[in-house]
């Protein structure tokens, strides 16, 4: 990164969403100049700290004990306003509202405590074509206050459906759909219609597609959908806590979880002969239709 924008404080997500909505409305009227490349600036915020009350609510919503060490999903929520600031820059080529989440790849290098002062930095990369639109990766990194040690790194892949930019690689043809045969579930989640609102309250992510049927419909979805990070954080809450200090996880979303939903899950643990945890693989699907929702892996180390 050659240039960066340093913000003096954590941006307000609600303002970012309002700005994004205003931009979207303006775009309908004025057709802004087409941007086909990513801004070269990173956005940085220093002096970031966890909100202890929100952190506690977050862990309890995920069904895990609230510790002094921040859960992975909470770290994602903590850096999300910075990531979003990247996507609302005027020269960002894709519309923020209505974008869907395809994948998260996260590395935890060092445990982060609620009392730690943090520096957060985010930027966009890898704008590329997708079968049904254009995708982009947002990289977010958390360093210690001095910026000398990398603690956490998350790469989120988003898709702007129906947006095709000139000059990008021709999207590869649709992969033939592999029939998903659901395994025997190890768990089941009953997600009520308020799941999106509950996660919004603890994460601050009030994206309208998660809040209600009406707000989701306004953005072209038939119902509201669960946050991808809610799903990821709940899975992470169930994998063994014998996780070493450094661990990684990767989740890919196949289809949105329309609310309300009954989600079936399989989590498979892999251990050494001594019983030490190595990794957990997880898959989730719609309990009745067997439509696959998401799958991924959590593993020891940051490789």
């Amino acid at each position, binding site marked *: 990164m050659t240039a960066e924008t340093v913000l003096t404080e954590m941006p307000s997500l609600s303002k970012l969403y309002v700005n994004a909505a205003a931009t979207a409305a303006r775009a309908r009227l004025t057709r802004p100049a087409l941007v086909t490349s990513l801004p070269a600036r990173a956005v940085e915020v220093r002096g970031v700290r966890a909100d202890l009350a929100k952190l506690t*609510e977050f*862990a309890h919503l995920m069904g*895990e*004990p*609230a*510790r*002094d060490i921040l859960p992975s999903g909470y770290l994602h929520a903590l850096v999300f306003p910075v990531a979003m600031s990247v996507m609302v820059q005027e020269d960002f080529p894709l519309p923020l509202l209505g974008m869907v989440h395809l994948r998260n790849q996260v590395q935890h290098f060092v445990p982060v405590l*609620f009392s730690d002062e943090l520096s957060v930095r985010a930027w966009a990369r890898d704008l590329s074509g997708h079968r049904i639109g254009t995708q982009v990766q947002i990289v977010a990194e958390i360093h210690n206050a001095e910026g000398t040690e990398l603690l956490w790194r998350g790469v989120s892949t988003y898709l702007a459906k129906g947006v095709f930019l000139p000059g990008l690689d021709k999207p590869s043809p649709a992969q033939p759909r592999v029939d998903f045969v659901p395994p025997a579930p190890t768990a089941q989640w009953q997600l009520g219609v308020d799941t999106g609102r509950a996660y919004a309250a603890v994460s601050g992510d009030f994206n309208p597609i998660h809040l209600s049927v009406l707000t989701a419909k306004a953005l072209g979805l038939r119902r509201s959908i669960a946050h991808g990070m809610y799903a990821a954080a709940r899975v992470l809450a169930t994998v*063994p806590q014998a996780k070493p200090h450094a661990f990684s996880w990767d989740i890919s979303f196949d289809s949105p979880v329309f609310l309300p939903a009954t989600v079936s899950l399989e989590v498979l643990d892999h251990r050494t002969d001594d019983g*030490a945890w190595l990794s957990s693989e997880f898959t989730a699907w719609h309990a009745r239709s067997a439509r696959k929702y998401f799958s991924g892996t959590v593993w020891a180390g940051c490789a």
Partner: protein
Amino acid sequence: MTTPTAAGSENVGTKTTGARSAGIRKAVVVGGNRIPFARSGGAYAHSSNQDMLTAALDGLVARFGLADEEIGEVAAGAVLKHSRDFNLTREAVLGSALAATTPAYDLQQACATGLEAVIGLSNKIKLGQIDSAIAGGVDSASDAPIAVSEGLRTILLDLSRAKSLGDKVKIASRIRPKHLSPDAPSTGEPRTGLSMGEHQALTTAQWKISREAQDELAFASHKNLAAAYDNHFFDDLLTPFRGLSRDSNLRADTSVEKLAKLKPVFGKELGDAATMTAGNSTPLTDGASTVLLASEDWAAARDLPVLAEVVDGEAAAVDFVHGKDGLLMAPAFAVPRLLARNGLTLDDIDYFEIHEAFAGTVLSTLAAWEDEEFGTTRLGLDGAFGSIDRAKLNVNGSSLAAGHPFAATGGRLVASLAKMLHERGAVDGRPARGLISVCAAGGQGVVAILEAR
């Protein structure tokens, strides 16, 4: 007394290495871990029992390298417990780094929960049923369960059984505004309607315990606990949580003069004779504690320290309902029985850990032991049971200063005493010996003897 046995049968298929039939072996305290205790509504106001018990467990696991270890059994409990937490301890184990194959159970004996967990698990170790154990306790007065009123609860249950819409409407129409006031837990005794403080105020007055004596005991508790922190006594007994690294109730700068200024809060109908204040009573507190127990072989095989041996324990209860004895006086009966069974007297004890539910509780117990009539008519002795050297009492502070998260106090006492005994080593050529005494709601008390290793 326990007798050492040759342990170590290596039968394939047996889970423990303990001798299964040949007598009993020793159970030892390896160490403990607790989180600092916080006054209710403070640093842990939004932390659940499971959060705090898990935090205490996490710290214990980290201190003794127990990740992925299958412990013989974990037993802990909470006095104020949500009904959803029916498996509180097992859930905390599953959320910890211990092997998921570690069994756990909840127990509850009011304020004696933690000590009873230590005694019960030690007995299993002594019998060779398990080789290792974690005893614990947790309580939150901040995150206390609040239930719907009894009237509403009955209506809701009827509603869930109703078949037709008509029935449902009929049952729902029974709900009245009065049903909506919630039912919060209290420290009141169900059979007397008196709070624990009011009960103790009666006992304090009965044994003619002065306000000055109570304030002095409270002052000593704060002074001793502050000194223990300054001397780094708690460095290997405690893991910070939620930004706290000391018990938040501790007032290092308090004085007898400051304590003397507080107004009585219990027994106010006694008028000028009222002596119990917020300063010489324990505050409502949040916190959790754990203790790692083991057989000698298990500890040795893992190169773990051995601080003390859990020698013996005893429970007692008094008939307090119509005032025959004070609510919190059961330890006055349990200790003489326990010492007699072990062939000991008060003079054979080097450290006394008498839980300070109220300063009046400790002083009433000591007064009863020094009373000739109590000794002859109630304890069946030739005279008074005896008196103790106050320099041996709660030397690193106790509940008046640290606070008292009900079920967590036993674990705090056992871990601290075990460490004190280990540091003391031998006295007159025998292992240093300590006595723990905990009074509990319902007129109960649990006491135990520990010996230095």
